[in-house]
């Protein structure tokens, strides 16, 4: 790896931006991906695969609408199955984007400038995939708007004591704030693309999206204020959205769900899987587009460290779950834990433990963190592990509850798999269209990382 030679002499860390860049080269490099450069083979390959998977999703959803949720493996007692597993998984993945764009902005972590744009895009597309599942899971999905309070002829409002309604508010707020934050951040770059575009179509497209951005001092000032305000709005969402999602479980009295540890444990798990997705997207992107000098080893290293940290919190939570099951002295709780470890879904449980706790320990080693291939592999493993975690929580709790007479099993059908892989396709399709059409790295924010920007500030001060 050539990046390893780029270590900062003082800190022993890779720099956040490769040497030799100036304002002009940064703008050239990022905007050329959209405007002039031929797309690499990887782009065509991923986009066509993603397109096929999206078609599979369309097919699965059409069959679902025609025949109903009976095409899935769900039934009593396991009525949640894949749909809710996927919902929690996707919404969790989104959290890393918001953490990077909002919390790291407020914490003044400039290294986030190179990865916030595509991480935010990841958030939006993940939330879009997540939002599909609760609606698809409804028996009559065309009546989904009943979840929203509006003056209806039935004279009733949604049940505000139900966490499922809180979910609607949490997720729609999250989607709205994320889209706004993303779009506001894009404005100056859209104007750059408008000004550099050589075709009439490009000028019109980026011109309309840029909303008349001229880069005046007043524009910049208002942009700064708006960004900070939106970051302030988005910051609590990083913690609150997955907390509310965890309420879907904790408010129920089912063993394995009814636990106060869930909110922090879910938030940590969300950021954990989110950073895994950031790495899964960043590593191939920087290789295919030659962006190693903008998304440096420093970014990969930092993301891996966040993954390790949140992974340890998740491991601690698993341990506490097991401890509390024993310490509570409640029979059903103890049975649930034993059943998780040795019951019919023991295989999935031990797979999740090895994915989420064991394999992640490799990240303690700098050698592993500096190896992009290993990082990519570990991130995929974490994504699988976090999906299994939600699957195990949902299925093992539901399939053996208080009444042995109502015990049952859940077996996914091929439509379960088709819907799930279909949303992965939709996510990748949206993401790679984004890479093609919009600057995947924030041009104006990366420019502030350059020595040129810093020198000016210092001389003025």
């Amino acid at each position, binding site marked *: 790896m050539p990046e390893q030679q780029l270590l900062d002499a003082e800190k022993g860390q890779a720099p956040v931006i490769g040497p030799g860049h100036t304002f002009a080269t940064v703008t050239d490099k990022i905007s050329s991906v959209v405007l002039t450069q031929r797309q690499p083979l990887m782009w065509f390959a991923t986009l066509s695969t993603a397109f096929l998977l999206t078609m599979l999703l369309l097919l699965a959803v059409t069959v679902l609408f025609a025949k109903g949720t009976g095409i899935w493996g769900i039934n009593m007692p396991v009525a949640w199955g894949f749909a809710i597993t996927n919902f929690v998984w996707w919404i969790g993945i989104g959290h890393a984007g918001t953490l990077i764009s909002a919390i790291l902005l407020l914490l003044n972590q400039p290294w986030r400038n190179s990865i916030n744009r595509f991480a935010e895009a990841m958030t939006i597309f993940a939330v879009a995939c997540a939002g599909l599942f609760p609606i698809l899971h409804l028996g009559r999905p065309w009546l989904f708007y009943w979840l929203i309070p509006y*003056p*209806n*002829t*039935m*004279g*009733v409002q949604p049940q505000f004591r139900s966490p499922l309604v809180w979910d609607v508010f949490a997720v729609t707020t999250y989607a709205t704030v994320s889209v706004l934050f993303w779009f506001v951040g894009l404005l100056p770059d859209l104007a750059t693309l*408008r*000004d550099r575009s050589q075709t009439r179509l490009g*000028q*019109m497209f980026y*011109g*309309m999206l840029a*909303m*008349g951005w001229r880069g005046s001092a007043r524009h910049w000032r208002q942009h700064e204020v708006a960004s900070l305000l939106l970051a302030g709005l988005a910051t609590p969402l990083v913690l609150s959205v997955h907390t509310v999602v965890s309420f879907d479980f904790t408010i129920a009295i089912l063993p394995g769900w009814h636990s106060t540890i869930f909110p922090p444990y879910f938030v940590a798990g969300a950021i954990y899987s989110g950073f895994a997705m950031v790495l899964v997207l960043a590593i191939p992107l920087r290789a295919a587009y030659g962006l190693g000098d903008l998304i440096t080893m420093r970014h990969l290293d930092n993301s891996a460290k966040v993954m390790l940290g949140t992974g340890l919190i998740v491991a601690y939570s698993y341990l506490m779950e097991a401890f509390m099951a024993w310490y509570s002295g409640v029979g059903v709780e103890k049975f649930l834990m034993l059943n998780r470890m040795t019951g019919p879904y023991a295989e999935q449980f031990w797979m999740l433990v090895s994915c989420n706790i064991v394999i992640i320990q490799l990240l303690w080693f700098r050698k592993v963190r500096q190896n992009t291939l290993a990082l990519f592999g570990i991130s995929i493993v974490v994504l699988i592990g976090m999906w299994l975690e939600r699957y195990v929580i949902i299925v093992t709790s539901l399939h053996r509850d208080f009444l042995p007479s109502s015990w049952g099993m859940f077996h996914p059908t091929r439509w379960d798999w088709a819907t799930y892989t279909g949303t992965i396709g939709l996510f990748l399709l949206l993401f790679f269209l984004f890479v093609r059409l919009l600057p995947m790295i924030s041009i104006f924010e990366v420019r502030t990382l350059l020595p040129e920007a810093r020198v000016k500030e210092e001389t003025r001060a």
Partner: protein
Amino acid sequence: MPQIFHRSTNTISRVSIFGAVFALAVVGWALSSLDRSSYATRANTPREQPVAFSHAHHVGDEGFDCRYCHTSVETSSFAGLPSTEICMNCHSQIWADSPELAPVRDSFRTGQSIRWTRVHDLPDFVYFNHSIHVKQGVGCTTCHGPVDKMPLTWQHASLHMEWCLDCHRQPERYVRPRDQVFSVTYQPPPDQLELGRKLVKEYNIQSLTSCSTCHR
């Protein structure tokens, strides 16, 4: 570099952004009004019937009690449609040769019921019981409107769930004394709320708004 957009774009974009908000609000308002209009609920529209039966004549002019024809209203969920025999009690004597009443005589002769067009048709997922409403002081005209003024019968209320709940949530606004339930000329007194509260207590009327009260 030449300008990409014409100067008018400024105005167009401003108008379209604010216009979109306004347009969405108008669409929402229009949909909600349409949903409640008599076009959607079919309220206030007289229905065609096989025999042009007039409540205005029978109830308004002649002063029939509702229960003369709707015999099971006090004991059953269904108020009951009169059998042809009830019609023929009078119409074997008066208007006995009227061509208007030919379907009634045919029905009497053949034993085939007259196929009336239903005016108040609740969805099948709603359980409704006439007898309990009548017993608890809900007047016929409270829901069915001034039938004594309907030449052909029409649906008076929207039959929307919000309309049911309007009374179920605050029954004191509508209940009347039991001896006034079948009166078509009864007007609520000015102190309806006071009387209503008294009656709610006296008749032990519960405000039943649980889902399973009606959706069983």
